């Protein structure tokens, strides 16, 4: 066994860390700061650095694309408090295009890697909560194409996206895993109505109404009614990315707290010298090591068989949900009032950590899923 990163990944990690140190910090992040929901200059910088290409395999023209690449990239993004839609465009969008796209559709991958193409996945629905197979939007074939209708909830990066990947049901009950299809549609198409808003954890999202959206057969991504296994696979990758980014933010929050405990003086001594706080800082560091291991397990099993992959993805999301809450809340508490201010970077990191629990299934959802997967 070897837990060391490969030399290439160490180089990727170093260059990304250096780039972000000069370019970005949590203090700069503010939900209202960037109209598209992210810093466009930072985005092109990441593309130039090859960060997006690291998230695609060689057959797609990239130089990575494995779980370990996702873990390295997203931990660095999370450390710096970056909430740009890399998961949406590269992991979900790029992942679906790579696995299901025909040669025309796959051409978008080059644009993604170059930083010129944005994607959003319009999948979750108001009544589905975190249930991945819940799709009540309908796709009905007619003489001149396929007509889509439905509602999609909190579609992250919708407003900035050039293309939406929309899930809709061609067959089966609302929560059946069979019968789900995906469609690649320009985001400005007639029949797509967006209501856009900022997110607590950074970035923007939209509620989307799909009203008699007419698409051609060529818009279908992959075979009809068989998208679910691939959706599950890219969601596991997105969970890994989210966990790694959250781990990065947890590391930064713990670093800030450690520094604060060493420098803030009350009662004539650094507050970190009080055992009541020192032991809690120690608990945070223990939780951080557990979180690191959970991310390593999820990333390392991303290319494994379905059951093994899903088990580790759910385990990581549950553990990161719990340890993330601990570190976010304890970091704020041990800082006191200063930790509550918008001006100080901890507030942004805490929002990033806690709100990650609301994406791709929360702590409870993945606990239940882990139980189901281990019972099987």
């Amino acid at each position, binding site marked *: 066994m070897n837990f060391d990163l490969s030399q290439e990944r160490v180089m990727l990690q170093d260059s990304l860390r250096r780039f972000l140190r000069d370019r970005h910090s949590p203090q700069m992040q503010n939900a209202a700061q960037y109209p598209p929901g992210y810093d466009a200059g930072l985005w092109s910088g990441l593309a130039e650095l090859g960060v997006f290409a690291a998230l695609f395999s060689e057959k797609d023209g990239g130089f990575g694309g494995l779980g370990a690449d996702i873990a390295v990239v997203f931990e660095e993004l999370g450390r710096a408090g970056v909430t740009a839609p890399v998961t949406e465009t590269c992991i979900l969008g790029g992942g679906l295009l790579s696995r299901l796209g025909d040669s025309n559709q796959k051409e978008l991958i080059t644009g993604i890697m170059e930083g010129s193409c944005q994607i959003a996945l319009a999948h*979750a629905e108001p009544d589905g909560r975190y249930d991945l197979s819940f799709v009540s939007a309908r796709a009905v074939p007619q003489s001149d194409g396929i007509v889509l209708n439905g509602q999609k909830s909190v579609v992250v990066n919708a407003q900035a996206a050039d293309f939406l990947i929309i899930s809709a049901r061609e067959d089966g009950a609302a929560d059946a895993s069979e019968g789900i299809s995906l469609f690649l549609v320009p985001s400005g198409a007639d029949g797509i109505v967006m209501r856009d808003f900022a997110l607590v954890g950074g970035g923007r999202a939209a509620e989307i109404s799909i009203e008699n959206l007419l698409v051609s057969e060529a818009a279908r991504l992959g075979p009809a009614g068989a998208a679910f296994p691939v959706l599950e696979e890219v969601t596991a990758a997105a969970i890994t990315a989210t966990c790694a980014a959250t781990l990065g933010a947890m590391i930064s929050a713990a670093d800030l707290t450690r520094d604060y405990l060493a420098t803030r003086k009350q*009662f004539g001594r650094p507050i970190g010298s009080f055992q009541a706080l020192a032991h809690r800082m120690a608990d945070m560091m223990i939780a951080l090591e557990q979180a690191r291991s959970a991310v390593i397990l999820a990333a390392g099993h991303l290319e494994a068989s379905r059951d093994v992959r899903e088990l580790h993805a759910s385990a990581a999301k549950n553990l990161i949900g719990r340890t993330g809450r601990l570190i976010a809340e304890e970091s704020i508490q041990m800082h006191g009032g200063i930790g509550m*201010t918008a001006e100080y970077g901890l507030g942004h990191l805490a929002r990033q950590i*806690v709100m990650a*629990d609301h994406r791709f299934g929360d702590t409870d959802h993945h606990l239940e899923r882990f139980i189901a997967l281990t019972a099987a």
Partner: protein
Amino acid sequence: MDLNYSEHEENFRSEVRGFLAAELDPALAENVRLGKQLSKQDHEGWHAKLNARGWLAPNWPEEHGGAAWDAVRRHIFEEECALAHAPRVVPFGLSMLGPVLQKFGSPEQQAFWLPRILSGEDWWCQGYSEPGAGSDLASLRTTAERDGDRYIVNGQKTWTTLGQHANMIFCLVRTDRSAKQQEGISFLLIDMNSPGVEVRPIVLLDGSAEVNEVWFRDVGVPVENLVGEENKGWTCAKFLLTHERTNIAGVGFSKAGLEAVKRIARHSRSGGRPLSENPHFAARVAQAEIDLMAMATTSLRIVSRAAAGQAPGVESSMLKVQGTIIRQEINDLARRAAGVYAMPFGSEALDGSNSGLPDPVDAGPVAAQYFNNRKLSIFGGSNEIQRQIIAKSLEGPGQ
């Protein structure tokens, strides 16, 4: 022992409900329910209605215009107000300064300032914390130097809640720099409109702007605004903090919060069924409810042990710690219950820049409330300080 409310107490509850039904504007209650930031006028209007009914100062003695209710009545009142989503009574004048003036103020100070608190003529804020003096409050550095019949005040206060609305601030200031820590501190009433006072808002991580920094540069304060003796202000400060803590158990808020969690969980559907039917989530809610039931009684027991108008001692620290743990847990449950609909940035809706936020589960800005209420375990003496007070009281042989 009798765990039932008496007939008198039940009648009182009906009376409170009748008052709330008649006087509480439904639009205002809805804003409270949704966690929106209330305007100064919202607060003042509600205070005026309570004052007209004689209910604005439940803990004050009758001679000063208070209701002089016992613990049970106060409990019933707070519970009904919270469940009806009435605005919280702004505590700085009523729960903090009022009791201090009644205990330490001169007859002239009482006669002048207390009626103005009730009438709303003065809006008070609290000048305790400083950038370098948080948990270690006694290390405060704002100075007041005697100059004839005035004090000249210089320094900075912080975390001043709703200071943007206030015309008066009660401050802890250092009047003797040579004395050790607590011994050189005085309790001073300062007019915020004096030359040299500056208020700057601090934006919090949920986007709200309810706390402020207050700066004093050569601010002149008449000597008659000194409460109690010079250099004995720490006694007032401690007395006030105990009163502040009594209200901080927040049983009423927790009950209203738990109702909200249940409502959101009924609207959130998971696997085709309401989240409220999910055994795992239901267990979390049940556990919070069990804790809250016990705490409501703990709070009643402790508060009723103290004489009317008096605050309990070390037990108030216990109420603060337990009360904030439960409130924060309920905020966490509300956030979880809302699922993806916790993600929209509430402040866009609160400040009116985006009124079209999706909220099919009727959650309101639950994430903003979760983050905002992290303050509960920090302000009014952090939970670490409260535990220290409790631990200190346990030193020495047991009884």
